[in-house]
């Protein structure tokens, strides 16, 4: 990433990591970048480095054994798959919400718009308790579902419900501004050229919104992989079936196994970080391609 590019382009070659391109005239690069790197290091990098260093203290074979034990693998699989399903749901409903909020006028729209942020403000534990209560056999929704013999909590579906809740603001809030910024003229042009509504949507709108949608979905996915507070109330926490990866970290900590916890946490962190890196690269690449 940081090695000088082998490209013959002179300008690219002189661009060193975190060093400004000399052609720029705006001031404040040193100050803003310096502060950014300092604050980033103090709050994020150094603490996370402690975790990485902690995992390196363990013997490599022990590390591998810990993170590849069947139960830990099962928990990674569960966390990743439920987060992915929730992200898919959020892609659809988040997009839908952003669409209706931006394009349509109906009573209560502003209230809906504001309530999108609720999952951030409501403590995850309260959310977990609420859903567990609602969907329990004696709860408002659970009673109804019980008549059809459907039980959503204490099963992977319960985890998905909690993860949809905590993740959907990310999608709405990334798609909404892009959708709002979209010039209606583009669509009108498409219509006047004889494109059907659906064609205009697929060919014109969707490609334009896709990068933002991707950002939102990935952020909600990344957040969902690590979610703990809301999920443990609704998951059931049965080994191999409904035990999420963050719970594995917790149960290792409760046995005073700091190293094991750090190992499981590190792998979880690497998965999330590579997700973000891929996303941001795709997004930058998309933006360049689009412009």
């Amino acid at each position, binding site marked *: 990433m940081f090695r000088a*590019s082998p490209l013959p382009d002179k300008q690219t070659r002189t*661009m060193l*990591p*975190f060093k*400004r*391109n000399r052609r*720029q*005239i*705006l*001031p*404040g*690069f040193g*100050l803003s*970048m310096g*502060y*950014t790197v300092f604050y980033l290091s103090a*709050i*994020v990098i150094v603490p*996370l480095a402690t*975790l990485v260093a902690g995992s390196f203290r363990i013997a490599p074979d022990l590390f591998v054994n810990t993170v590849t034990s069947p139960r830990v693998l099962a928990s990674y699989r569960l966390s990743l798959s439920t987060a992915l399903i929730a992200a898919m749901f959020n892609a659809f*409903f988040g997009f839908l919400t952003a669409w*209706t*909020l931006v394009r349509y006028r109906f009573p209560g729209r*502003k*209230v809906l718009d*504001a309530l999108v942020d*609720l999952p*951030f*403000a*409501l*403590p*995850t534990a*309260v959310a977990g*308790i*609420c859903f567990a*209560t*609602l969907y329990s056999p004696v709860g408002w*929704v659970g009673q109804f579902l019980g008549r059809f013999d459907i039980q959503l909590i204490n099963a992977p579906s319960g985890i998905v419900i909690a993860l*949809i*809740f905590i993740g959907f603001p990310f999608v709405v809030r990334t798609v909404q*501004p*892009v959708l*709002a910024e979209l010039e209606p003229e583009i669509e*009108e042009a498409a219509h006047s050229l004889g494109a059907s*509504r659906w064609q*205009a949507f697929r060919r014109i709108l969707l490609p334009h919104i896709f990068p*933002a949608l991707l950002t939102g979905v990935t*952020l909600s996915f990344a*957040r969902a*992989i*690590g979610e703990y*507070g809301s999920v443990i109330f609704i998951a059931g926490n049965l080994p191999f079936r409904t035990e999420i990866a963050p719970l594995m970290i*917790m149960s290792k900590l409760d046995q005073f196994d700091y190293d094991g916890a750090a190992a499981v*946490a590190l792998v979880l*962190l690497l998965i*999330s970080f590579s*997700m*973000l*890196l891929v996303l941001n690269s795709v997004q*930058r690449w998309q933006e360049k391609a689009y412009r």
Partner: protein
Amino acid sequence: MQTGPNPDKTALRHRTGTSHQDPLAVRVILIFLTLLFFGGFVFLPLALVFAEGFRKGAAVYIESIREPYAIAALELTLTTAAIVVPLNAVFGVAAAWAVSKFTFRGKTFLVSLLDLPFAVSPVIAGLIFVLLLGSRTTLGSWLGEHGIKLIFSTPGIVIATLFVTFPFVARELIPLMESQGREEEEAAVTLGAKGWQVFSIVTLPNIRWGLLYGMILCMARSIGEFGAVSVVSGHIRGMTNTIPLHVEILYSEYNYAASFAVASILVFLALATIVVRSIMENALHNQQQTQF
């Protein structure tokens, strides 16, 4: 996370451009689906919070909110937010300035690092500060010998919250400032403006709504954070319990009415952002009308 132009203004534009307005049936179906989704995922939990909070009557509700431990928890929560939001706002502006106004290698990597706290499990977020500052570590034991308490007291809660809400302002501002380009600032520099002048006179007016949106999100998340704070708090009643932790404690004491009553404070704080945002949006609207 980014903020475009005022959605209301765009909506106005869309309403007038009738040629591409969706058919009524489509509109009704989509609005219905959205409401259905909100019904299941937002209104039901919200209704439950209030139904449970008021189950034992308004007197119990008010009593549980006014109880000293609840007040202490509210104070701690608001103190934390009051420290965290400005710090992360300053950082967000600096980071957005560096990322959006300059080209440099490793930008994608840097932006991904900024996003990282979103992807870190709250449990891990708490854990790393315990690993860093806990008394088993060199740094932690040094702090302990000098009588400085960081974790299991207010500073620890602040630090963990800083971490969890770290990206919000930056994430909001970067796309906004990138879309605005750097021409205006460059023009100001050419005209002889110095660094801070460029920022305060050209950039800040352009980004202040985005900045405030980011701060509101940051605020919402910092008052609601549970997992990370739970790990570093120590749960000392009346001292290191934030509102979310207090809710959990009341719940564990089988004191549901009180627990949901206190949780509803957080709902009110979240709903207060509706008001703030409406005021902001209206102000922006008026300002744009005077401007053009």
